[in-house]
């Protein structure tokens, strides 16, 4: 009897364990599952010519071009980076690769401002990247937007990094803008041109965060998974509007199928892959402080030789003295020496014959 009971219990335990394992596997698969193109939860958007995901398309003026036409230039380190000229070029990732619950997009940008031959003001219309489903649902980040009519709640105006999130239309429209209050004509918060800067955006179904150079810059509670936006495209270097495209070099830009923590973003900024086993932040380093300049011997009073004589440039005094001396000698010679009269020597005429 007791054996039978034991058998029944064992079978129940076995079934429960199997069910639990299956549930865990399914759950784990759902959490870690990423759309095609992701490797180790990462899809490279701009990395190396041979590491470029085939899901990333290259466009010029809205027309798809072969990936071989992408302009690869020297990157931040020894590798290569994608150069977008600001003349209609952008990269695009399609719908299926954007169907993730949480996500991170992070990479390095070397922004060059207005494109060659374009008006300087066009730099304020360029975008780092834009997620969009349609004209009502989108999320976009700009390196330096400028609109002095856009007032910040703290009193300043828009003149700097800009992020905007839009979802829905009409009364149900949700629209969030993010920028730092700038003083018109005095200050701005734009990404400096001609420098590498790290940009990262995370969505973890609880909040939307933008990080610049590893530092949390904008944050807003947003109880929304990325998949709920049902984005059709992610454009790198462009929006969905008819605007100038980005003029920048882009390096190590990737989209991740999970939302990174602030610490993980900081690791990326420090060149550490947060997905590597045991990855940690490097210890903080103190920058070397400048030393007071050592006193130059020529600055010491008394040892000064500033090239002057009695306050006059020494070369001028020497030259004047030399010219004077030459002239005085010549004058003396001319004055003292008697003019030739033909009375002596064998001067002109030769006299005595």
């Amino acid at each position, binding site marked *: 009897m007791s054996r039978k009971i034991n058998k029944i219990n064992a079978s129940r335990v076995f079934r429960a364990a199997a069910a639990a394992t299956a549930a865990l596997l399914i759950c784990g698969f759902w959490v870690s599952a990423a759309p095609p193109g992701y490797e180790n939860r990462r899809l490279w958007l701009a990395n190396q010519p041979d590491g470029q995901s085939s899901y990333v398309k290259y466009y010029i003026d809205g027309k798809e071009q072969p990936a071989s036409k992408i302009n690869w230039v020297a990157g931040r380190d020894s590798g290569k980076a994608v150069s977008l000229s600001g003349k209609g070029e952008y990269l695009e990732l399609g719908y299926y690769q954007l169907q993730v619950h949480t996500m991170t997009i992070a990479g390095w940008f070397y922004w060059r401002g207005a494109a060659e031959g374009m008006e300087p003001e066009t730099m304020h219309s360029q975008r780092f990247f834009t997620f969009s489903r349609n004209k009502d649902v989108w999320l976009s980040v700009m390196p330096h937007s400028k609109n002095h009519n856009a007032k910040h709640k703290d009193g300043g105006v828009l003149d700097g990094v800009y992020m905007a999130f839009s979802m829905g239309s009409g009364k149900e429209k949700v629209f969030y803008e993010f920028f730092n209050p700038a003083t018109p004509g005095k200050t701005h918060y734009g990404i400096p041109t001609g420098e590498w800067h790290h940009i990262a955006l995370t969505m973890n179904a609880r909040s939307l965060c933008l990080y610049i150079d590893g530092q949390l810059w904008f944050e807003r509670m947003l109880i929304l998974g990325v998949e709920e936006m049902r984005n059709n495209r992610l454009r790198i270097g462009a929006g969905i509007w008819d605007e100038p495209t980005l003029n920048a070099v882009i390096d190590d830009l990737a989209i991740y199928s999970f939302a990174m923590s602030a610490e993980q973003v900081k690791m990326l900024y420090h060149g550490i892959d947060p997905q590597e086993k045991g990855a940690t932040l490097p210890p903080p380093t103190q920058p070397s402080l400048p030393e007071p300049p050592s006193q130059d011997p020529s600055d010491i009073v008394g040892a000064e030789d500033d090239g002057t004589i009695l306050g006059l440039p020494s070369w001028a005094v020497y030259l004047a003295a030399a010219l004077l001396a030459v*002239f005085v000698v010549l004058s003396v010679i001319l004055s003292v020496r008697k003019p030739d009269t033909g009375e002596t020597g064998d001067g002109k005429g030769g006299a005595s014959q």
Partner: protein
Amino acid sequence: MKSLKNAARLLLFALVVSACLIIPAVAASPALEEFDNPDNDYIKIYLITERDGQGVVMEKPERRVFWEYPLLSAGQTRTGTLYIKNETQNSLDFSKSSINLPYDDQQALLYIVNLKISVLSSSGEPLYQGSYGSITESFGNSFKLPPLDPGETGEFTITLSCPFYYTGTPENQTAAVEWKITPSNEDKNGLLSRKTVLVFSICALVVITAVIAAGLIRSRRAGRN
């Protein structure tokens, strides 16, 4: 005899030409009222004049502008203009100018080292670009304020930016950075100062007098003979 005369004429000519070698420079100067605006902390002018033979440097506004007392928060960028106007009759050299950091204030140095500064000439040529903490190393070496001719105004665009990763409070960390503009008579770069011209003029006068005297002596002797 003829060759001696030619040599003397040539010397005289050289002295007279040298004495007349003054090339006045003409430059536009900004309106001074702008500098006195109480809200102005982004443009500054150094007016260099001469009083009783002494050079006088006057700055407008007298208070510190943003690059002399940086208070930029993370991610912030400011741009201003520094003018230096030479109102003397001499060409001026600025190689003795200096930028002094608050070396005895470690907190301030930490903040200033983080700041990036660029100094551009009026033609947009970068004179210095880099950490504000390293500017003194370059100042006077790779980064020099160019000499100014009489009446000329130097214009320099200064851009200061604080990195996005900065997490401190500038108000608690900053300190004054002294920009000491020290003009001196330009004498090493080929331009003639007023004193130099004066020396040459005196020399020319002496020479001309000597020529006339020599001529008189010769004509008297010729008369006697």
